[in-house]
């Protein structure tokens, strides 16, 4: 696999993982608010 393609793919994976982690942080935040009856 050419190097630039590998970098592109690795970057895609990292962005996907980063997006999932951010979504999880937001989800846990909202679950906490829901459990505390704040929202």
């Amino acid at each position, binding site marked *: *696999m050419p190097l630039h393609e*590998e970098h592109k*793919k*690795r970057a*895609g*994976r990292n962005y*996907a993982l980063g997006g999932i982690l951010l979504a999880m942080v937001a*989800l846990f935040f*909202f*679950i906490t*608010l*829901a*459990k505390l009856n704040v*929202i």
Partner: protein
Amino acid sequence: MQIVAPTLDENSRNAREDYLPGAGDFFALLKPRVMSLVIFTAVIGMVMAPGDIHPVIAFTSILCIAVAAGAAGCLNMWYESDLDALMERTAGRPIPSGRIDRQTALHFGVALSTASVLMMGLSVNYVAGALLLMTILFYVVVYTIWLKRRTPMNIVIGGAAGAFPPMVAWAAVTGDVSIEAIVMFGLIFMWTPPHFWALALYSCKDYKAAGIPMLPVVAGEAETRKQILIYTLLMVLVSILPWYMGFAGPVYAITAISLGVIFIYFSLSLILKKDMKTAKRTFFYSIFYLFSLFAVMGGEVLIGRMV
């Protein structure tokens, strides 16, 4: 039939060194098409359940069910990669095609299973979490590891795994399992054999090549067609129960009977025509049938609550 558990060496077998798996390859491990049906039936299970649930908790429940379904699919692909490589229909999956090695798939599946069950148990309720764990274990251990390579009844018993999601969603709302949830479970449970046997009829060569004792391979096509009809009749009877028991409305009853009659027509056609085209049409109709039935069941209840 001898079953050999994969060794550590075999776990890294097949992986192509010149290929870096992308996010899409991991997503493919989750069997997204199966996941969509699971999400849909779970949403309807949640709609049907009496009581209120906070929208954030409802979203979390459906997310957990979806991730757990994907994780179970991933672990299924990990265990069955040897069989998948032998079948035309599944040879392009990430592991047999060498895009992901078995060890990675195993870790991915276990991580997602653990995360989804813990999250369901801690953020929704313990009953839903326990049911979700049972669903994953049933699909991976009972169906994939124990039954699939041993008996033609594999999908009859193993079908329970696919029938759990509306029950889990129901438990997420109510915190328990009641008769209505069991009826929804029963409907999917009875739907599974005709659905998979129709698929097995036109994929019989694949299953034979892989040595999987599906009903058409073991008992022959004629017996399979007969069994499809028997299970379809039972399924249609079960499909009327939600209306009979009073938790689904008259529109549902008419839909269940109409779609059921069409399903019986397909099953009879299978016996009379004996061609692969009819088997394929029955398989695709069965998917339409379950989607439509649950859509009408949930839709009618939702509309009833609004007016």
